[in-house]
């Protein structure tokens, strides 16, 4: 009884100091959670990648295309169930800051491979029927207010000119981790237009997407595909969709690493603040600790009082910080729009936040605990005057 009562009442003794410390921890745990969520969002594409999908691209780099004719050759490779293809369009909607991915696709084969994109039956039919139609993700539609029937102009950077598309359908994801920030339109429309302007660039695709019969044979099938085009005009590089996505993330890894490091720096900052609070608190209460020891309480009891108080403050701040992380993440996601297709606070992040708060409480108490436990009774009692 008296232990917990002492801990809790002590924690509330300096209301201003405790409140300030709690606010500091809330801010730290909140920003830690958001930064961890940003890092997770960076990897979100790779998380959702299906194990039975391969991506085949030009071995030189992604900016080099592949001939459309490769599609049939790849389909003939043993272990391949289906093949589709897509071109990165790289258009600008109104201004360059409005970034979202746009792909020219062959609708039927492509959407058959991505069952995680859920399109209402009639919208799907309307999209397939309209050569200049577009299919947009729910998040993208919400961000820019696209509705079925709207005309969306995109200014091409790779394919010159202004292109106009009519939104024919909006797709939802099968779960919150599905990327619904994409814009799809007909590859045929792109190709016909390119053909009119410069024949040389026609009938080319950015990537081939390969569906496997058996996900376990990914490595063997990848090799077989690449072997087929070795020493041809356009050599290929085939990897799983996940490896392909990770490849993108890895190239910006310096930034991810920096964000991750900074997310731990904030914990260290608040640790210094919390340690200071506990050091001052313990110093002010030395005579009480000496009294308790004189009464016969063991050093462990006194140290426990300091630790308990520190943990109580840290965990209270941590809990509030965690509770605030969810609305803050939603607000952040709404602000950045389609920049992060998936922005969700993971359960692991909450666990990390809780662990960080507890660690702050624990480490901050370490030195003051030692001091309180070791206080010399006679000197401590004298400190009262």
């Amino acid at each position, binding site marked *: 009884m008296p232990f917990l009562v002492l801990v809790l009442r002590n924690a509330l003794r300096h209301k201003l100091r405790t409140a300030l410390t709690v606010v500091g921890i809330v801010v730290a745990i909140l*920003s830690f959670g958001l930064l961890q969520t940003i890092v997770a969002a960076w990897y979100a594409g790779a998380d959702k990648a299906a194990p039975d999908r391969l991506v085949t691209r030009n071995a*030189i*780099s992604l900016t080099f295309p592949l001939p459309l004719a490769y599609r049939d050759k790849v389909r003939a490779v043993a272990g391949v169930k289906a093949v589709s293809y897509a071109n990165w369009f790289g258009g600008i909607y109104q201004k360059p800051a409005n970034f979202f991915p746009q792909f020219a696709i062959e609708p039927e084969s492509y959407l058959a491979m991505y069952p995680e994109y859920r399109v209402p039956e009639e919208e799907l039919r309307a999209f397939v029927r309209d050569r200049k139609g577009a299919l947009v993700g729910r998040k993208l539609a919400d961000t820019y207010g696209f509705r079925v029937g709207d005309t969306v102009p995109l200014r091409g*950077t790779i394919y010159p000119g202004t292109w106009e598309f009519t939104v024919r359908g909006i797709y939802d994801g099968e779960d919150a981790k599905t990327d619904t920030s994409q814009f799809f339109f007909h590859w045929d429309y792109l190709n016909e237009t390119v053909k009119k302007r410069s024949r040389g660039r026609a009938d080319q695709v950015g990537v081939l997407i390969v569906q496997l019969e058996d996900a376990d044979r990914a490595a063997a099938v990848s090799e077989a595909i690449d072997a087929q085009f070795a020493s041809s005009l356009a050599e290929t590089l085939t990897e799983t969709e996940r490896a392909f996505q990770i490849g*993108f993330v890895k190239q910006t890894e310096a930034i991810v690493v920096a964000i991750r490091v900074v997310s731990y720096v904030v914990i260290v900052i608040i640790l210094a603040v919390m340690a*200071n609070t506990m050091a*001052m608190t313990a110093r002010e209460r030395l005579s009480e600790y000496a009294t308790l020891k004189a009464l016969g309480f063991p050093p462990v009891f006194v140290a426990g009082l300091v630790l308990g108080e520190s943990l109580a403050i840290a965990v209270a701040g941590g809990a509030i910080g965690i509770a605030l992380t969810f609305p803050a993440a939603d607000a952040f996601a709404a602000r950045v729009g389609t920049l992060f297709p998936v922005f969700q606070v993971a359960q692991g992040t909450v666990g990390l936040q809780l662990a960080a708060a507890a660690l702050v409480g624990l480490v901050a108490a370490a030195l003051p605990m030692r001091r309180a436990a070791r206080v010399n009774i006679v000197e401590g009692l004298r400190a009262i005057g």
Partner: protein
Amino acid sequence: MPVPLAYSLRNLRARKLTTALTAGGMALVVFVFAAVLMLDAGLKSALVKTGQPDNILVTRRSAGTEIQSAVDRQQAAVIESQPEVALGPGGVPIVSKEVVVLIALPKRDSGVPTNVTIRGVGPGGLALRPQLAMAQGRMYRPGASEVVVGRTIAERFDGVGVGERLRFGGREWTIVGTFDAGGSAFDSEVWGDGEQLMQAFRRPVFSSVVAKLADPGSFEALKARLESDPRLTVEVKRERAFYEDQSAALSNFISILGVTLSVIFSIGATIGAMITMYAAVANRTAEIGTLRALGFRRAGILGAFLAEAVLLALVGWAAGLAAASLMQLVQISTLNWQTFAELAFRFTMTPKIVAESLLFALAMGVAGGFLPAVRAARLGIVDALRAA
């Protein structure tokens, strides 16, 4: 009559642990703040070094980057023949018609295939980039399947040593040298003969045309004429502006992220200072009463405690800035998502960053110290003395 500064200073020295922890928190915030500014400064400095002030760079309209741009031979010939273009020895215009492609090379530390810019350069290319100097080996020979690699490429990638061979575009290319482009973006590129690279990649068109102006002041006139020429669909920029625009997104991202984080983190450190100063006031109530009884005014007390908080912030600033300066030894490389290519740059300390971080630290000190100092100044003499 102000309270002597020594009073504030000695008080900080008297409680070392508290001073160290509070200043340490502030130091970390200053460190993050300065490091991010240094990163942005490093990026900008690399880009400024890349562009020469009297060079122009011509790309296809609205392409944005050289990778997405295409300028055909007829268009290039028109650009080359403009009267504003400077002439070199023998009356040849100083122009480089360049082709830029990306290839994926494995990074040395991680083995991750990373996009690297390959620049096929025309005969005038070297005259246009005086910042370039060979560090090792020799320059490629025109007409040969030879390339030279930039300094940071040589440091960070495998299989790019002098004498080694790279395979791309259906050919083997011998690396014959390493060049140093003075910390510019070219240090992250591989250079070869433009015509050879165009053949290998079967590209009939150039990516960009770079030209030197005889008179930098003639830029606007030239830009207006070329961009309205019906034979051309091009965009003309000063070379330096072009490279700055290319990294605007990265630079924006770094500075927005950095400033946001610094502001949020500074809340934590300011709270730390506030806690410390409130405790200092509480512990020294009797002392404050004595000072007031001796004849020091409220303003003097306010000043003394504010000075203590500011001194605390200055200690944090010095420590944070010292740690941040060490970051100058670190080189960062990342994908520039406007060009899809690797770009390496260094943390760079500038006098502006020193001044900005000082202001930032002082702001934290004043914000943390003001309310406690007000409380100290408002204590009644008799009440304060009784606290003894």
